[in-house]
C-alpha cells in the first residue's frame, strides 16, 4: 500500500498544496501588516499636515503682527519726526520773524540768532540721522577702514563731551586700563559717532555723578573694550532688550522728556557690526548703565603697538591733537611720486621735501612704471586715477616684472572694497586723499631711512605752510572757473566729465583749507558712480552753494 504509486503521488500533491496555502497565508499576513503600517503612516502624515498648517498659520500671523508692528512703529516714528522737526522750525521761524519786526527791537539780536543757530543745528543732526538710517536700510553704507589712534580718538570725544558734562555738573573722565592698544582699525568718523552717542545718552539720563569712558584690552579675546559708564537712571531688562530696535526708545514718554530721534543706538549698532565690532550693554534701574563697544584687533602685541605708560597715552593724545601740524620726521631716501594733479604734486612735494628725502615726480602710470623699474626708489607713492595708465595697472605690471619695493596707493577712494583692489594689485599700503600730513609722514617714516635724532642732522626748512597757502589762494582763484565747468557738465548731463571734476575737488579741497568741499564732493561722486543721477544733481547743488559761500566770504 505504502508503495502504491498513486498514494505516493496523492500525498505529494497534498503536501505541495499545504505548502502553497501556508505561503499564501503568510503573504496575506504580510500584506495586512503592510496595509496597517501604511495606514499608520497615513495617519501620522495627516496629523503632521495639520500641525504644519497650524505652524504656518501661526508663523503667518506672527509675520503679519510683526509687519503691523513695524508699520505702526514707522507711523509713530513719522508722527514723532514731524513733531521733532516742527519744534525747532517753530523756533527758527518765530525768532526770524521777531528779528525782522522793527517793533521788537528790544529782543536781543544775538540771543535770537543763537537760538536760530542752535535749532538749525539740531535739525541738521536729525536729518543726518535719517540719512544714515536710509543708507543702512538701502545697504549703501560705506565705511572707511583705517588705522585710528586710540588716544587721538579719545581726545576728540573728550573735546566734544567734556564741556557738555561740565555744563551739567557731571564728572567726565577717560580711564585707560593700561596697557591698551595705541591704534585700532575702523572708520574714524563712525567710531567717534558711536562713542559720542553713548556719551550723550549717558549724560541725558544722568542727573548727578559721573560719566566715564573706560578703556580695557582683553588679551584672551584680542578685544579692546571702550565702555561708557554712567551713574544715571539705568534701565530695566525689558528696556535694554528694546534698545537697539529702530524707532523705539525705552518708552514713549522718554521721547517727550529727553528728545532724540530714537535712531541713535540702532545706527550705532549697524555701524559697529559693519566694522566687525559689537556692542554690549549692562544696566540696572536706578544705578546706571554701561555701554561698551568691543573692537577686535587685527593681531596680538607686539604686532599691535601697546601703550604701557600713562604719560604715553597723554602724549599720544597730544600728537593726535595739537602737535599734529608740527611733527616732521627726518628721513633719507628716494621717493617717486606718480600723481597727475598739480595741487597734490606741489603739496606732497613740499611735505616730502621737508623730511629731507629726495623726490621725483611723474604724472602718469606708464612713466611711473618706467621710472620705478629703471630706478632705485625706496618708495613709490602711486596715485590711482591717472591718465594713460592708472595706478592699479602700473602697480600690477611692476609686480609682474619682479619689482619688490614698497608701493603706496594714493587715493580718494578708501572704501574697504577699493583697498582690497589696491592690495591685490600689489600695493603695500594706501593713503587717503585729501592728504593728511601726519598719516603721510607715518607712511614715509615706515619705508624710508629714519635719521631720527641722529647728531649732525639738520632739519630741512619746512615750506609746507607757504605752499599750502599759495595752493589755497590758487584754488580759490580758480574756483569760479571750476564751478562754471561743473555747472556746464551738470546742464549737459555729462556724468563722466562731472565725475572727474568732482573727483578732483574731493582729492584736493580738503588739503588746501576747504574740507567742506571735499566732504560735499564725496557723495556727488558716489551717486554718479552708482548711476543715481538725480541724487547727484541735488548733492552737486549743495557743493556749488558751499563754493559760492566761500567766494562770498572772500569778497
Amino acid at each position: 500500500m505504502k508503495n502504491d504509486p498513486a498514494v505516493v503521488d496523492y500525498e505529494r500533491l497534498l503536501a505541495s498544496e499545504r505548502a502553497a496555502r501556508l505561503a499564501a497565508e503568510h503573504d496575506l499576513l504580510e500584506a495586512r501588516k503592510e496595509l496597517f503600517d501604511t495606514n499608520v503612516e497615513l495617519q501620522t502624515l495627516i496629523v503632521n499636515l495639520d500641525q504644519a498648517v497650524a505652524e504656518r498659520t501661526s508663523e503667518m500671523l506672527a509675520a503679519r503682527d510683526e509687519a503691523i508692528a513695524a508699520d505702526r512703529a514707522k507711523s509713530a516714528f513719522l508722527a514723532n519726526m514731524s513733531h521733532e522737526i516742527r519744534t525747532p522750525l517753530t523756533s527758527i521761524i518765530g525768532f526770524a520773524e521777531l528779528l525782522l519786526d522793527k517793533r521788537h527791537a528790544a529782543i536781543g539780536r544775538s540771543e535770537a540768532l543763537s537760538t536760530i543757530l542752535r535749532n538749525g543745528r539740531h535739525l541738521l543732526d536729525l536729518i543726518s540721522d535719517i540719512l544714515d538710517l536710509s543708507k543702512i536700510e538701502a545697504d549703501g553704507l560705506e565705511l572707511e577702514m583705517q588705522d585710528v589712534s586710540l588716544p587721538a580718538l579719545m581726545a576728540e570725544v573728550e573735546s566734544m563731551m567734556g564741556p557738555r558734562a561740565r555744563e551739567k555738573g557731571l564728572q567726565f573722565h577717560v580711564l585707560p586700563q593700561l596697557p591698551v592698544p595705541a591704534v585700532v582699525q575702523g572708520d574714524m568718523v563712525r567710531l567717534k559717532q558711536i562713542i559720542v552717542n553713548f556719551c550723550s545718552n549717558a549724560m541725558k539720563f544722568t542727573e548727578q555723578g559721573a560719566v566715564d569712558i573706560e578703556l580695557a584690552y582683553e588679551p584672551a579675546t584680542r578685544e579692546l573694550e571702550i565702555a561708557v559708564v554712567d551713574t544715571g537712571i539705568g534701565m530695566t531688562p525689558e528696556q535694554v532688550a528694546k534698545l537697539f530696535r529702530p524707532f523705539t526708545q525705552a518708552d514713549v514718554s522718554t521721547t517727550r522728556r529727553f528728545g532724540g530721534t530714537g535712531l541713535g543706538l540702532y545706527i550705532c549698532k549697524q555701524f559697529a557690526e559693519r566694522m566687525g565690532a559689537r556692542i554690549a550693554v549692562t544696566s540696572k534701574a536706578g544705578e546706571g548703565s554701561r555701554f561698551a563697544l568691543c573692537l577686535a584687533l587685527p593681531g596680538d602685541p607686539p604686532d599691535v603697538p601697546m601703550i604701557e605708560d600713562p604719560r604715553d597715552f597723554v602724549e599720544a593724545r597730544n600728537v593726535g591733537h595739537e602737535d599734529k601740524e608740527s611733527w616732521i620726521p627726518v628721513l633719507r631716501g628716494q621717493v617717486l611720486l606718480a600723481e597727475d594733479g598739480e595741487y597734490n604734486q606741489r603739496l606732497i612735494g613740499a611735505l616730502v621735501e621737508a623730511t629731507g628725502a629726495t623726490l621725483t615726480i611723474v604724472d602718469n602710470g606708464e612713466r611711473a612704471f618706467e621710472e620705478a623699474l629703471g630706478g632705485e626708489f625706496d618708495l613709490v607713492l602711486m596715485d590711482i586715477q591717472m591718465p594713460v595708465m592708472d595706478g592699479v595697472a602700473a602697480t600690477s605690471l611692476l609686480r609682474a616684472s619682479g619689482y619688490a619695493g614698497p608701493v603706496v596707493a594714493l587715493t580718494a577712494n578708501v572704501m574697504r572694497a577699493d583697498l582690497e583692489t589696491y592690495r591685490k594689485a600689489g600695493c603695500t599700503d594706501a593713503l587717503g586723499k585729501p592728504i593728511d600730513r601726519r598719516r603721510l609722514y607715518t607712511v614715509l617714516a615706515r619705508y624710508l631711512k629714519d635719521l631720527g635724532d641722529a647728531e649732525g642732522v639738520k632739519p630741512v626748512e619746512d615750506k609746507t605752510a607757504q605752499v599750502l597757502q599759495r595752493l589755497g589762494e590758487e584754488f580759490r582763484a580758480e574756483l569760479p572757473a571750476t564751478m562754471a565747468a561743473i555747472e556746464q557738465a551738470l546742464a549737459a548731463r555729462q556724468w563722466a566729465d562731472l565725475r572727474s571734476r568732482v573727483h578732483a575737488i574731493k582729492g584736493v579741497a580738503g588739503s588746501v583749507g576747504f574740507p567742506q568741499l571735499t566732504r560735499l564732493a564725496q557723495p556727488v561722486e558716489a551717486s554718479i558712480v552708482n548711476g543715481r543721477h538725480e541724487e547727484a544733481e541735488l548733492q552737486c547743488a549743495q557743493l556749488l552753494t558751499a563754493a559760492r559761500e566761500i567766494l562770498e566770504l572772500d569778497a
Partner: protein
Amino acid sequence: MNTATASAEAPTDDPPTSDSPAVEAPPAASPAIPAGFDATTATAPTVGIPTTHRCDVLIADDTGASREILSALLRQACIGVSIREARDGADAVNRWKEWRPRITFLDIDMPGQNGLSVLQAIRAMQPDAFVAMVSGLSSADNVRQALSMGASGFIVKPFKPQRLIDVLERYGTLTGHALVTAK
C-alpha cells in the same frame, strides 16, 4: 665665509668649456661695479644655499660690459652662483640646451636671434624655466610683451642692484632656494 670669497670661488667652480664661444666670467674685482655697491660693505651671508649646491646662471648679452657688470652684481648679491655667458641669441640657445641653467638673464636687443626669440626657444624646452629679460628699453609695452611671452622678470639697463635682488628673491620665493645673501 663672506660674499667676497664666495664670489672669488665661483669661476673655479665652472666646468671647462672648450667647444663653445662662451667667455669665462671675469674676476669679482671688476672695475665695472657701480659705486655704492662695494663688496666691503656687504655683510656676512644670513641666508643662502650651501656653496656645494651651485646655482647655475646663464647671462646672454652681446655687450661685454653689460655681461661683466651683471655677473659682478650677481656674485656680489649671492653665494654659490656659477655664471656662464653667451654673446648672442643663437649661442644662448645652444648653451642653455647644453647646460640647463636654473636662472637665465636674456638681453632683448641682440643681433641675429633676439632675446624674446631665445625666451620662446627656452620655454619650448622647459615651460617653467626661470628666465628674466634684460633691456635698456623699459617702456610698458616692451615689458608687457616680454611678460606675455612668459618672462619671469624684467631688469632695466643700466642695472640697479636692488632690481636684480628683487628678481633673485622672486626666484627664491618660487623655488624655495634663497640666493640673496645681503641687501
